[in-house]
Structure formats: structure tokens, C-alpha cells
């Protein structure tokens, strides 16, 4: 788990960290590919919710270059399939997600990220 579809929805939420806090940067990752049944209709529908640049940058940082730099106006079926692979089949099982702004490290173990804030990072 920690699939890129979820990763694309997550930003650093440390108190007062509001700028340049997205996307979180992966490091020391253990990447596992697990084939998943395709539902391209879902991918198509989810597209407007995604931050494309963040997704492409993250996918590339993990070695997947199948997505074009900018979001295509008319998306082809092959592109939807590539998106399905990137969003649904790439799992980060171990590693870290780091905020590019404040440097907070969110560790991932057994596919579950720990995104609890420390006491002094919690706003009020």
C-alpha cells in the first residue's frame, strides 16, 4: 500500500507548514508492483481530482516515465492504462515521505504511513 492515488491526496500538515508542502517526497523506498483489475472509467472520473504535475514528478522519482509531462487534453486508452498502473499498482511498502518545506519525515512501514504529528507540531 501507499499507492500514488492516495499519495496525490496527501500534503504535510505540520502546524504552520502551508507552502510547498506537497507532494511529499519519497526516499529509501521499497516499491512493489501488484497487478490490480482495471477500472478505467474510475480512473477517467478521478482524473480532475489529481494534481498532474505532482503525480508525474512522483512517478518519475520512482522510475516510472510512462506519463507525459503535461496532462493531455484528450486522454487515450493507453494513457488511462498507464495511469491505472501508476495510481493503483505501484505500492510503497517501506520508506519515507518527506515534506520539501519543513522536512518532516512520515515513515512508512508494512505499507502503512505514520502521519501522526508530534505534540509540538499540532496546531490548536
Amino acid at each position, binding site marked *: 500500500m501507499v499507492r500514488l492515488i492516495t499519495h496525490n491526496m496527501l500534503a504535510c500538515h505540520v502546524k504552520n507548514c502551508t507552502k510547498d508542502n506537497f507532494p511529499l517526497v519519497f526516499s529509501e523506498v521499497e516499491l512493489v508492483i501488484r497487478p490490480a483489475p482495471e477500472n478505467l472509467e*474510475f480512473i477517467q472520473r478521478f482524473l480532475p481530482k489529481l494534481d498532474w504535475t505532482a503525480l508525474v514528478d512522483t512517478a518519475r522519482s520512482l522510475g516510472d516515465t510512462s506519463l507525459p509531462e503535461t496532462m493531455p487534453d484528450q486522454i487515450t486508452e493507453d494513457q488511462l492504462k498507464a495511469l491505472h498502473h501508476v495510481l493503483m499498482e505501484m505500492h510503497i511498502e517501506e520508506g519515507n515521505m518527506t515534506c520539501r518545506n519543513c522536512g518532516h519525515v512520515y515513515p512508512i512501514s508494512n505499507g502503512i504511513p505514520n502521519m501522526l504529528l508530534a505534540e509540538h507540531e499540532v496546531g490548536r
Partner: protein
Amino acid sequence: MPLYVLRLSLEHLSFRLPSLLSISQVFGFKIKFVSEDPYRGLLVVEVAKEEDINHILERDTLIQSATELYAQGTSYEELQTELRGKLDVLKPYENSTFKFTLESTNHRVPESRAVEVIETFEFTGLKGKIRLKDPEVEFVIFEDYDWEVASTVDARYERDGKFKYVFFGRRIGFGTARHLTLSHAVKDRAYYGNTAMDALMGFLMAGQALPAPGKLIYDPFVGTGSMLYAVAHWGAYVIGSDIDGRQMRGKMKGKNVRPGILRAAAQYGTEDKFLDCLTYDVTRSPIRRGGWIDAIITDPPYGVRAGAKRLGRKEGKKPQREEPYMFPDGTYSHKRPEYLPPSRPYELANLCLDLILLARYLLVPKGRLVFFLPTVNEDWQEIDIPKVEGMRELKVGEGSVQDFGKWGRRLITMEKTAVDDGLPPTFEDHDEFDLKSGPEYLPGHHGFNKRYASGFSSRHKSQTASPASDRDPSSSEHQAAPPAKNGLEATASLAAALEKTGLAE
């Protein structure tokens, strides 16, 4: 439009119609409840086509069987008169192999009379062979009795034949979702916790979220995941989060250990539907945008077994740390792997309102929020469900309640009516539930865990003046103000009762 008789379980009656309505929503058909009293063992409904009934048989956990209705009455004479006038409905089955079955609700018909009754249907003129095993068509006669205790054989014979209604029709099929409550039984689950929802209720709740392939459903208090197995079974993608990651992971530690939630999902063949499980406090969540979740389904911890928690320190205790804590050896406490930030109780009235505000933000338009709200029955009032702009409650009659005597849990289903995402909730404690400001009214679920622990002692019985007003002169005006809802019981005594039950801090 054709009529159908549904034979339904008499359990969880107030969940019956919402369940059928939600199934009609998922598959986009109209259903009309024709029976005058829709809470008997047999319910007559109108839908456009048999396919719709098949969806109900596949999805509804309360249905036993469905039958196309040809004739009905309060006596066999009435029923058969109607049937004689429309024998052409049987034309398509004239030469099919068939059998007749006599079924009854709240009663068991003696075998001898069943045969007699079936013989009176000879006039139907069916020419096919009678085949008791695997016939092509099964015709069913239903006798519907009022509920009554008949514990002796004599009593049973005495009331035999004194049914309220009788129906005749052709069996469409049997419910197939009922077995899910066995295959998903908590006791046989690969992984579960002590607050896991029972499988039948889990499926009834799941239905309200309108689960279907390609939908994304989120549980912000996921615990051991029991709310998600049912929605994932119907094909939805799911995401769960919890402040306590140990619940999702289970006891086993180490690399390559699969989280407990995924082990249970694998048992049900839905592991690929579990997109992610994350550890965070939903009131301090990393979610960056709204408007992308199709339904939120959750059973928030309300304190009977486990209370809800959120990050922070309890009021009146040590103040919250502003700077990280450094040990004498120069390392920071929060950098240690065993570090757990302090948490404080998350009071239920605040949690409930926050949950609705969160749904308003995260859901897509028309997305649904489904959750259980425990409440002290004596104190329950309509207005206890917070009104939030852009969200509307969906309910049938008095709503769906599971009654445990002094308390009950209420299944709340809400729909997002707003079309925008709006702003994320602030998750600050809400003033209207703050005892220090002397609230005029508190919902029946406020401070639920403490009231449960104190045996639900009434808030309203105390006659003593409010100690709260002695302590805090600013609240004295509330004492004089007319009580909002509860008749004679003054707000002051409410505060006093709260004080007594240990609710006031």
C-alpha cells in the same frame, strides 16, 4: 406495473425500507411500497421489471424470497375469485413442470391442510407435470398471520387458517445476500478487534453508502476495518484511517508482515479494493483537498468499549508542548520509534458535528455519509442531528434504530446537497457543546461514554440549583431563560444533573 411479494426477515425492521430504497438507488430503478403496513413478514412492492427484483435478491441481507404477485385477498375465496378473472397470467407456464408451496408467516400450517389448500387450485388448469424437485416454475401461496404466542399444538391448530392476508404468485428466487452474514461472520474473520461490527449490521450499513464498482469509500475511524469489508464486497474501493495504527496492523510486527486489515480483506477476496490504510488523527489530517470521496462510512468509537481520541492534551492538565522535547542525551523524544503523541478524549457531540462538516468537504455532490450514533433513548430528540448547510439527512419514518433499552444506536444517512467542496472543517471544539458556557440544550449523545458508565442516570431529575451558576455568574442568565425543549426541567438543573453524573468537567 407488476407487483411482487417480498418475504423479509423481521429483524432490524427499521432498516428494511432504507435498505430496499438504497438498492433501488444503486441500480437506478423505482420502487413503490404497496402494503399498507410495510413492516409485516410479507411486503408487496411495485417495480418495473423482474431484473429489479433480482438486484434486491442479490443485495438485500434481509430478504428471504421474492414472488411475482398474481392475486391476493383476506380469504381464499377472495383470492381465487381474483385469480379466476386473470388466468391468462399463468398461460406462459401452462405446460411447464411445476410445484405448489404453501408458506406462512408467524405460523406453521399443518401439512394436512397444506395439501387440501393446494388441491383447491386445480381450477388453474395447469397441464405440466408436477415435479417437487427442481420444477421449472414454483407457485407459492403465502398466508400472513399476525404475531401471537401459540406455544401448544392445540393453540397452533386453533389459529390455523385465521390469517390476515393471503397471496398467490410465482417465485422469482431466493435472497442470496443472507449467506454473506455467515461468510463474513466476525468470529471466522482472519483479523478483528473487540469493537468489530457484526456482519449483518455491517452489510445493512454498507448498503446505505450505495457501494458499487468504481466508487471510493472512506472510513476515518477505521479501527480493524469492519465497516469496509462489506462495501468492498460490493466492489467499491476503500481507504481507512485511524489515530491508532495498531488497530489496522495487528499484533504481529516486523518487515513483510501484512497488516491485519489486509489479511481479513484477502480472506474475502477484496484485498485489491483496499487502496490504503493510514495512521493519522482525522482532526489533524494530511488530506489536501475536498470533493473526491463518494461515501464516508464509519462507526465512530463512542466509549462503550473504546473512546474516541484526538491529538492534544486534556484541558487542565499539562499544557501542550510548543517546542520538541530533548532528552539529556541530545535526542528528541518525537524522533524515537516508540514515540506516541499525547491524546485527549474526543467528545461525541463534537465528533458528530465534525464528521458531518468533514463529509460536506470531502464528499462529491450527492455523496453519502453513513454512521452510527449512540444515544440515550430518554434524551433523544429530532434536533440532535446537527444541521449543516449542504448536507441533508435521509430517513424513513423515525429513522433506523437498534434499541438496547436505555440506549440505542441510530443509523444516520446523509447526502451532500452542496455542489462545491467548501472549506475544510477547523475541528475546533464547538462552543454549543461546552459545559462552561452553560448550554441550553445538549444532544442525547453528548458525553455518551460517561453516561453509559453511570448507567444512564437522568439528566433532568435533579431539583437542586445549578452549582455551575454558583461558580460562574455569567451563566446565571441561562438559569432564567426558558428551557429550550424540555418543558419544566430548567437548564440549571440540567447542569446540576450533569455535574452529578460527572459530566461537567
